Structures are given as structure tokens and as C-alpha cells.
């Protein structure tokens, strides 16, 4: 088999495009797991919800408000969807997750899994499972860019760039700022951080809100690429959990880097042996679990 530089690179670039979604979603999971000690199974459903906020904001919000000409455009959706989903997350944390803090994290997993089923069930009931196209991709992002080795869609390049920016900005805030030092300290010993005058329960609520807002942001980015469907989240989240297991739960940089790398590995596998591309991540997961059970970037406890 001939592996030309061009074929490999173009698949790797497309893989990187998937990889940024893995990175941004597993980053949210890592941030939430770090401070709340909860495996946020509803993450995929909230990613889907983010995409639907964008879709419905474009198609239905105007008529609903009695102004048929009003469409929530893409740029506004990038702000509005994370806000809507973030607020929803704040409500969920305040009313439900907070009560589970005393218990084993299995309960948080069960609760969020239940929420995911409910949200997905409701959307399956009302919307097309095979997906609706999101037509509001901005003009400016149409077309392709010549990367030298391939023509790459401008929109996907934008997705890669903005996702990397958001991921590394989040990393920077957590690892290099005063606010981040509260978060890191809260991950380690929340009780003591309270005794230092910090409102830890509020910090936990906002962190959960931010984590799920990231999922919604990814959902909006995904809307113009994949069709918007009630099951888009559950399909994505299975792979993302594998990414999280490989990277190691709770490591910020680990989740970003692992997400990006595994997206590219997937892309590369498509060139070498396409049928394996959907299973290669799980194969890697098995190997990592055998060799380093805490994950590549995780600490053994």
C-alpha cells in the first residue's frame, strides 16, 4: 500500500478536527471530575443540547417570538448556547448534584446518566433521529484554504483554531492564575479552602456551569459539520470517555493532549486500515489500562 504524504496529512488534519472535539469535551469532564468528583455522564447530552440551541435559535426562535424574520446567527449561538446550558448546569448542580457530595461518586454517575437518558429521550421524541442540517454557517467561513498538501475547509480550520484557543485558555486559567489556584486547592482539600475564606460551594457550582458550557460550545461548533441529531451526544461521549480513561481522569493538560492525539491517531488509522478507525481508540484504551491503569497523565492513588 502506498502512503503518500498528502493522503496521510489530510486524514490527520481531519482527525485533528475530531480531536479538538474530544479535547474540549474531555477537558470539561476533567475539570468537573477534579472539583466535584463526579463522572458527568450528561456531558454528551449537553453537547447535543448546545447544538440544538444553535439550530432551534436559527429556525424556530423567531417564529416563536412572533418575529419570523429573526434568526439567531452562528456567532450569537456560540455565546448563547454555552450560557443557556451553563445556567442549566448551575441549576442541576444546585438542586441535585450538591446533595450527592457526601456519597460515593457512583451516585453522581447514576444521576447524570439518568439525566442524559431523559434529555436524549425528550429530543428523540420531538426531533429527527437521523439529523437536521444546520444552515447558518457564516459566509466568511465558507470555502477552503490551501494548506500546501491539501485544500482544507475554512470552517474546520476555524473549529480547530478556536477550540485550541479555548482549551489552552482554560488550562492557563487553571494552572497559572490566582482563580486557578483556588480550583486546584479545592480539588485537593475543599474543607481547608473554605477555612481560608473562600466560598467553595459557589466555586463548585460555577465550575460545573463552566464545564458543561464547554460541552455546549463544542455542540455549536459541531452543528455545521455533523447533522444535528438527538443521538449525536451519545455517539460522541462513548469515544470521549475512552479518551478520558486513556488520558487519566482529572488531568487538565492530559485531557487536552490525549484528545488531540487520539483524534489524529483515528485519522491516521483511516489511511492505513479504514475499518479499524472506529475501534482503534478502544484498542488503545485496553492497552493503556493494562500497562498504566491510572491513564497516561493520571497519578496513581
Amino acid at each position, binding site marked *: 500500500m502506498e502512503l503518500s504524504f498528502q493522503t496521510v496529512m489530510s486524514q490527520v488534519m481531519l482527525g485533528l478536527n475530531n480531536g479538538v472535539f474530544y479535547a474540549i469535551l474531555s477537558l470539561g469532564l476533567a475539570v468537573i471530575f477534579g472539583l466535584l468528583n463526579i463522572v458527568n455522564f450528561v456531558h454528551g447530552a449537553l453537547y447535543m443540547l448546545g447544538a440544538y440551541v444553535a439550530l432551534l435559535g436559527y429556525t424556530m426562535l423567531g417564529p416563536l417570538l412572533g418575529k419570523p424574520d429573526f434568526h439567531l446567527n452562528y456567532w450569537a449561538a456560540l455565546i448563547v448556547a454555552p450560557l443557556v446550558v451553563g445556567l442549566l448546569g448551575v441549576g442541576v448542580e444546585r438542586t441535585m448534584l450538591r446533595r450527592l457530595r457526601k456519597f460515593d461518586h457512583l451516585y453522581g454517575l447514576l444521576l447524570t446518566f439518568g439525566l442524559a437518558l431523559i434529555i436524549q429521550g425528550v429530543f428523540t421524541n420531538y426531533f429527527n433521529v437521523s439529523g437536521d442540517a444546520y444552515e447558518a454557517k457564516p459566509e466568511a467561513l465558507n470555502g477552503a484554504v490551501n494548506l500546501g498538501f491539501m485544500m482544507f475547509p475554512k470552517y474546520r480550520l476555524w473549529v480547530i483554531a478556536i477550540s485550541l484557543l479555548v482549551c489552552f485558555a482554560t488550562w492557563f486559567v487553571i494552572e497559572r492564575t490566582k482563580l486557578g489556584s483556588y480550583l*486546584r486547592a479545592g480539588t485537593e482539600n475543599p474543607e481547608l479552602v473554605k477555612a481560608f475564606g473562600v466560598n467553595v460551594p459557589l466555586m463548585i457550582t460555577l465550575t460545573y456551569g463552566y464545564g458543561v458550557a464547554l460541552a455546549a460550545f463544542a455542540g455549536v461548533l459541531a452543528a455545521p459539520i455533523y447533522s444535528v441529531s438527538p443521538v449525536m451526544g451519545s455517539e460522541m461521549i462513548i469515544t470521549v470517555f475512552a479518551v478520558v480513561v486513556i488520558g487519566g481522569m482529572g488531568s487538565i493538560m492530559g485531557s487536552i493532549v490525549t484528545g488531540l492525539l487520539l483524534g489524529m491517531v483515528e485519522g491516521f488509522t483511516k489511511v492505513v486500515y479504514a475499518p479499524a478507525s472506529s475501534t482503534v481508540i478502544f484498542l488503545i484504551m485496553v492497552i493503556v489500562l493494562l500497562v498504566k491503569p491510572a491513564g497516561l497523565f493520571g497519578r496513581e492513588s
Partner: protein
Amino acid sequence: MPEEMLRIKDLHAFYDESHILHGIDLSVGEGEVVTLLGRNGAGRTTILKAIIGLVGRRSGSITVKGIETIGMPTHRIARLGIGYCPEERGIFANLTVEENLLLPRVIKEGGMPLSELYQMFPNLQERRKSMGTRLSGGEQQMLAMARILRTGAKLLLLDEITEGLAPVIVQTLGLLIRQLKEKGFTIVLVEQNFHFAADLADRHYVIDRGVIADMITRDELPSNTEKLNHYLGV
């Protein structure tokens, strides 16, 4: 009698189902250094934790400068001007020395600025970029003390600060406590090292099985050695 900084009345504290404190009454005047003595498990650490609100459930009354705190969340109690140094020091491994130092919120004016703290503890300045738990035990204890001096807190709750440290460091800590007392800090000390405590404290409360068994002032100490040895099981 100086003005009252801390007053505890009929304090009960619980962790889950276990009832640890059974009606504690004590008071600490402004500028006083008071120790809580007692055997392991007598409830001394729990008293400190109950003051700052870190026990599962508490009832009774705890006032700080006249303000009732029994219904307040921990972070608000801390902001009344309390600095807490936990047993095992509580240095954060994921934070650098300087981040550890800067973590507690400044709650009142009059705390020591970072530069002054670095002057007092030059080792901390040298190692300010190291991760917190890379420091030696003694350095970690200095860090745990330094970080609550930055906040302007005037009531310090210090839990076993000399535990497991070399004599020369214990001496330094004794000197530090004395300086703080001169500066007008109010200090509640849980201490295993009786000689360390006897030297510094104005009064000693003896805790036994969750109640106050006795209170001995500095002047009464010589005539009460035998009784005290009995309490402490020495």
C-alpha cells in the same frame, strides 16, 4: 479582663453519628494565648474545627467578637478574622510555595505583606517556585504559619504545630508565637508538647472525653503539675 475575642457555650459537635463534644464552655480574651491540653482523641482538634465550622454538625453557641457564628458557613466565619492552621499543616501539593502563601483571602487590613513574610522566613522566598509539599516538614510548618499571617486574621487556631519537628524548629516556632502575642494576636493552641505550651500560654484548658475537665492559669501551673500529669496520662 481584656475584651472577649471568642466565647463558646454548651458546644456539641458530631461527625456523622458520633457525638464528639459534649457541651464545651470556654472563653478567650483578646491578646490571650490559650492552650487546649488533653490526651489523643479527647476532642481538642474537634474544638478548633468546630470553631471554624468544619465538623459535620454543631450546636450551642460560638461567638467571635460578639458575633454568633453557629449558623454561618465556614468561609464567612473565616472572614470574621480567623486564621486556621490544621493538623498535618494542609500544604497544597498542586500549588507552589508562593501560591500556597497567597491562597487564604485577605480579610482585614493589618496583615503582613508578602515582602515582610519573606523577610521573616527567607527559606520560603528561596523556594517560592517549588511545589508546596517539596519543602521539608519544618519549612512546610513555617509556610502554614506564614500564609495565615498575611490575611489580617487576629484570632489564630493552631493545631499541633510542633508535631514531628526538630527541636531547633520548635524553638523558632516558640519565638514566633511570642512575637505574635506581643503584636496582640489571640491564639488558641492545641499542643502535645506540654513544655512548649507551658512556656507560652496564659491559660490552659484540659479537655477530657469531649468536656472541659479543668482550667489552669499560668500562675497555678506549678502547684498543679501532679493533677495535670494525671489528666494527660503522663
